[in-house]
Each structure stands twice: as structure tokens, then as C-alpha cells.
């Protein structure tokens, strides 16, 4: 099959986003993946599922993006020999996803030369696959100290710095193994999975209604993006269409989330180059936005405000006026601070050329989201596949090509201002409509996908339904899966003291990938 034929050969999933789903054999699976990789497409997610209850062994699923939309493929695997052709040679970011499918479900990528575990440490034995249906999620095994085979760099003067899992700052846990000569980093290897708390298994004990709350806590800093993606997936399988007002309010919430996260990062990026003034100033602005969120919607981070069928809070005229007022003050402050950052020789000296990811490397490794847009990867769902209300807003995508910390700073500045422009446009013409449409029942064994451009990048929720509106399998996918491996490249040749700065400029999620 030719790749461009998929919209005619496979059924389109109902819902807001252009997503087609097809069940294929191993040969066709590999063939379509190759065509996507050759044509400059991307891998969004890879996950497995246990289908023994449906007498169908296991299944491996991938979501691919092309210029036409998303192509989701399901490859059925036998119960006796659950293996599939690897795609990590086509999409390097698939490596950790394949290793996770092996840990969690015992599905093996044939041809892969990296057979190390990924999410599993030592809290359960390698014979146990927690996402298999015959595994009881409440079983507890004795925890032992983990052993992991890092790639060792040898040579005169090379030594290692192990960092983490408990870091020096207020950040999430993970382990970084630096191999260095003097101050220069030769190689960084990440070891994540410390925050694995069984989120995917937990979803399987929930029904569609209960799952919304957990979806909003996969990564608390992206709660709106996850909740919206989850809602899209539920709305797809139940055939629900939220009102124009609910959709408009969702976009207001999502852009507020983008604004407060970007403001926080801009502050920390100043702090990491010894410009503490930047931290103080941006965190005042961030706090102003959080207080606005709390005042208008009842939660500083907008948790549980996007729900399947619509939203949980309304916005009245007075609220809109409050937003306009706060934004006037915010925009004024941001413009002053941008000039100060731009003119500050010390800050620019640290930002420019640091942690560079060239557009070629970014394309090869599948860098996505905000850091992708700083390295010439012009992907933003809000501009490319805009669902309502973005389809009428003409979102201006921020793209830069330098791929250094400075470019990631610039993308943040541009996106904050763009998000404010979008929110103003939306609240100027807030459509009428009910806040929450009733969500009907979902058929058993249906697949629904939600796909939302969060502040880090695209968030995917893949939902497989069970009986009586139960969740059979749910895979939440954070763009950090794609971007963590690129950070290992971004640091090469830089000095160790610049790592916190480079890491912050990506600001990736640990909990979003550890699940």
C-alpha cells in the first residue's frame, strides 16, 4: 500500500482530529513505517496491549504523523510469540518505547540490538509484565537496589559523574551519567523510570468517567493538555461533540497553561545564567497568572476543569474583563523583560550556541514540540491540524533554526505573546452553548485517540475501551519520550556547568514518561 492511500483505505476515527486507524500485518506495518520515515513524517507513540481476553494474543500499536494527519496502526501479535519488527532503526526515539513494551507487556522488537530494560528497575522481576491482564496490580515484590548497564566511555582522562536520582534543585528524580574530560561532556546517558507509579495499570481499574481525574495527573504541569486529550479520546469513542463554548473555554485554559509554564521557564532560564532578577520578575508574572486562574476557575493549575463532554467552569463577562486587565499588565512586563534579556551581554553569552541541536539532527532524532520548533521542526498541531476553536484563529507558529538555548528562549517569548493574542480573540467572541454535553456509552473494544498541543509539545491519549464503559487499556504519551534522547545529544561538547541551563531550556517531564 502506498502511504498517501491510507485516508481512503483505512477508516477515519470520529472526533476532532484527523486520525485514521488500520489493522495491518507485520510486512505492511514495516512498509508503512518506512514510508512515513522516508517522507519526513514522525513517530508520535508506540504502545502494546493485552488482547488475550478477546482471543487475539497481544497487539502492538503505533501512531505516525504525515502531512495528511495521523495514521494509527495496530499489529496483532500471537500469544505464543509476541514479537514485531523493530522500528527504532527508522525512528530512533522508538528505542525506549520498544524497551518499555518489552518490560510492561513482554512484547519484543525483533532485530533490535538494545535489549536493556527501560521502565523496570528492581521492583518487580523480569518474568513479570505488569500490563498483562493476568498480573494483579496490587502484588508487591521486595525492592532491591537496581543494576543498569550504562555505556562506558574509556580513554585517557575520561571519568564519570553520576547525578541523581535526587537532584540538587526542586526538580523531578532521574539519573544522569556524564562521561567527561575536564569540564567537557563526551557523553550523557539518562536513566529514567524512577517515578514509575503504575499509572497505566491504574487506568485499567477505572471507567471512562473516573479516568479523567487521573489523566489530569499524569504530568501536573500539563494537566489541561492531558485532560483535553483524554476528553477527545472519550468523545471519539462515544460520539460526543462538545459545544462551541466548551471548546472555546478549553482553548483559554490550554493557553493559560502554556503562559504560566513558559513564564516560569523564562524566569528559571534567567536564574541559571546568574540573572536572579529574571527569576524574581518572571515569577511575579507567573504568580499573577496563577492567581487569575484560581480566581476565575477555582484552581491555580486548572486541574479537573476540562472534562469529557465539555468543561467544568464557565467564564462570564466580568471574568473576561479580568483577563484583559491582567494581560495588559503582563504584556507590558514581558516586553520590558524581553528587552532586558536581549540586551544582557552576560545572559546572551550563556544562551547563544549553548546546547545546540541542528535542524538536521532534530529531524533525524524526531525532536518535537517547543524545542523542535527552536530547531527548525515546524510542527504545531494548533497550526497544522487545528481543531475548534483554533481553526478560526490562524495560530502563528513560532519557528527558529538556531537550535540553541537562545532559540528555545525566543520560542517561549513568542509563544507567550501568541497565547495572549489567542485568548483575547477567543474571549472577545465567546460563543454560546452548554458547558458540558452528556457523554453516552462507549462500545466495547473501540479505539479513541486524543491529540493536543500542550506547552511541551503534542500530548497523545490512546484509549481502548472494555465492557460497560471500562478502560481496557490507556496509553498517555508525553512529547518528552521523543525529546529526552535528544537532550543527550544537545549536551555533547558543552561544559558540565551548562547542563542545568540546557536541561531547563528543554524542561522535559519525568513523570510523563515514567508513568
Amino acid at each position, binding site marked *: 500500500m502506498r502511504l498517501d492511500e491510507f485516508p481512503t483505505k483505512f477508516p477515519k476515527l470520529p472526533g476532532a482530529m484527523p486520525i485514521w486507524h488500520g489493522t495491518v500485518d507485520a510486512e505492511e506495518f514495516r512498509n508503512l513505517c518506512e514510508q512515513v520515515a522516508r517522507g519526513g513524517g514522525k513517530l508520535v507513540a508506540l504502545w502494546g496491549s493485552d488482547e488475550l481476553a478477546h482471543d487475539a494474543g497481544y497487539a502492538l500499536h503505533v501512531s505516525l504523523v504525515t502531512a495528511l494527519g495521523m495514521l494509527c496502526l495496530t499489529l496483532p501479535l500471537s500469544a505464543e510469540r509476541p514479537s514485531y519488527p523493530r522500528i527504532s532503526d527508522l525512528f530512533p526515539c522508538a528505542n525506549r518505547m520498544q524497551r518499555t513494551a518489552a518490560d510492561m507487556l513482554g512484547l519484543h522488537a525483533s532485530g533490535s540490538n538494545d535489549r536493556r530494560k527501560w521502565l523496570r*528497575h528492581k*521492583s*518487580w522481576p523480569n518474568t513479570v509484565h*505488569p500490563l498483562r491482564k493476568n*498480573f494483579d*496490580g*496490587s*502484588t*508487591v*515484590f521486595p*525492592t532491591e*537496589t*537496581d543494576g543498569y548497564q550504562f555505556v562506558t566511555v574509556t580513554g585517557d582522562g575520561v571519568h564519570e559523574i553520576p547525578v541523581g*536520582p*535526587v537532584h*540538587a*534543585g*526542586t*526538580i*523531578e*528524580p532521574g539519573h544522569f551519567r556524564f562521561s567527561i574530560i575536564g569540564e567537557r561532556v563526551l557523553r550523557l546517558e539518562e536513566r529514567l*523510570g*524512577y*517515578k*514509575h*507509579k*503504575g*499509572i497505566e*495499570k*491504574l487506568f485499567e481499574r477505572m471507567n471512562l468517567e473516573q479516568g479523567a*481525574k*487521573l489523566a489530569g*495527573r*499524569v*504530568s*501536573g*504541569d500539563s*494537566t489541561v493538555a492531558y485532560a483535553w486529550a483524554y476528553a477527545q479520546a472519550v468523545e471519539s469513542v462515544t460520539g460526543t461533540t462538545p459545544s462551541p463554548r466548551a471548546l472555546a473555554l478549553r482553548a483559554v485554559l490550554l493557553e493559560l497553561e502554556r503562559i504560566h509554564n513558559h513564564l*516560569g521557564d523564562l524566569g528559571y532560564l534567567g536564574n541559571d545564567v546568574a540573572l536572579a*532578577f529574571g*527569576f*524574581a*520578575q518572571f*515569577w*511575579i508574572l*507567573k*504568580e499573577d497568572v*496563577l492567581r487569575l486562574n484560581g480566581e476565575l476557575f477555582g484552581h*491555580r*493549575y486548572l*486541574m479537573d476543569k476540562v472534562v469529557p463532554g465539555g468543561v467544568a467552569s464557565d467564564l462570564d463577562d466580568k471574568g473576561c474583563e479580568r483577563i484583559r486587565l491582567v494581560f495588559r499588565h503582563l504584556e507590558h512586563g514581558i516586553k*520590558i*523583560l524581553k*528587552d*532586558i534579556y536581549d*540586551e544582557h551581554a552576560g545572559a546572551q553569552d550563556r544562551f547563544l550556541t549553548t546546547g545546540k541541536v541542528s535542524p538536521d539532527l532534530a529531524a533525524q532524532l524526531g525532536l518535537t514540540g517547543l524545542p523542535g520548533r527552536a530547531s527548525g521542526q515546524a510542527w504545531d498541531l494548533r497550526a497544522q491540524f487545528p481543531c475548534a476553536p483554533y481553526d478560526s484563529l490562524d495560530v502563528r507558529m513560532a519557528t527558529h533554526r538556531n537550535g540553541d538555548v537562545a532559540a528555545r528562549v525566543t520560542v517561549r517569548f513568542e509563544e507567550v505573546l501568541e497565547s495572549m493574542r489567542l485568548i483575547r480573540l477567543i474571549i472577545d467572541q465567546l460563543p454560546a452553548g452548554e458547558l458540558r454535553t452528556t457523554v453516552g456509552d462507549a462500545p466495547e473494544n473501540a479505539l479513541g485517540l486524543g491529540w493536543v498541543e500542550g506547552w511541551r509539545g503534542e500530548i497523545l491519549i490512546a484509549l481502548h475501551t472494555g465492557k460497560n464503559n471500562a478502560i481496557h487499556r490507556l496509553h498517555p504519551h508525553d512529547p518528552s519520550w521523543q525529546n529526552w534522547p535528544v537532550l543527550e545529544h544537545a549536551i555533547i561538547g558543552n561544559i558540565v556547568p551548562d547542563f542545568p541551563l540546557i536541561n531547563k531550556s528543554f524542561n522535559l*517531564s*519525568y*513523570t510523563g514518561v*515514567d508513568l
Partner: protein
Amino acid sequence: MYQIIKQILNTGIKTEAPPQPDEALRVEAQNLQEEILRHLGSALAIRHVDAGSCNGCELEIHALNNAYYNIEGLGIHFVASPRHADMLLVTGPVSRHMEIALKRTYDATPDPKLVVAVGDCGCDGGIFGESYASCGKISNVIPVDIAVPGCPPTPIALLQGILTAVTGGVKKEKDSK
């Protein structure tokens, strides 16, 4: 430089009054001498440990450092190592993969030490509970003095928890009885 100074002057002082301690947040009876607490309270060093959170609580811990809450203005600061800390501020649930790291961090913190469990998940396991992958609440793994609920708890609630931990010590007279 002129622009920076101008902006600082225009911003003015944003810091607000801190909250009062709240004894309802206490899990374990205070066992430190009042005298020790007085010393800790005027220059408290906190080590934050994320033991498996959704990163929501971390956002509010960051916010404690902003100009509105200005935690450093109260003599409380975050330190880079447990060896420098008087208090561990721990978010949860404790993932089983973080269980050993959390115990080691606790052991590395010199006595006398205080532990504040943060958030619904830190207090009782929250939505994640206990499972093959999660140990649940912080006190399942290390002793906890104060528990601050919330999803996530606001900076004011966090500050209240921290201030409660350094007040209400065991009076000296009691020992001499």
C-alpha cells in the same frame, strides 16, 4: 543596568505576610526541644525530595520562592544536599523505584531533622494509592512530622506546614519533672 534598576523600582515590594502555624497539620507529636526549634526556625534549611509526584506539588514549592511568598525572607532556604538540611519536604506518592533513594536521603540528613509530607499523595497515597509500583504515602517509608494535604497544596498551605513544623516544641520544664 539602568533598565534593570528601573524595573526593580517600578515593581516595588510584593511580599505578603506569612500565615500562622496550624497544629491540625501535625502527624507526630513534636519531640524536639523548643530551644532547638527556635534555632531551626530562624534559619531553616530545606531539602526537597520528589519521591514520585505528578510534578504538581513541585510547581507550588517553586512558587514559595517567588516575591509574593518570599520564603527566603523568613530565613528559610532550599539547599542542594540532604547533608545540609534540617528539614525534608517530600512529595509523593513514593514510587517503589524511589523507595531506596528516599530512605538514603533521610539517613543522610543529620539529626535533629523534620519531615513534611506534601500533597494528597504524600499524605495518604492520593489517586495513585499503593500498588506494585507505588508505596503510597510518605510515612509508609520514612517518619513524618507534618502532612500538608492539597492537590497541590497552595504556597500558603505549604508555608503553614513548614512553620508549624518549627513551632510548638517540647518545653524544657517538662523534661525536668
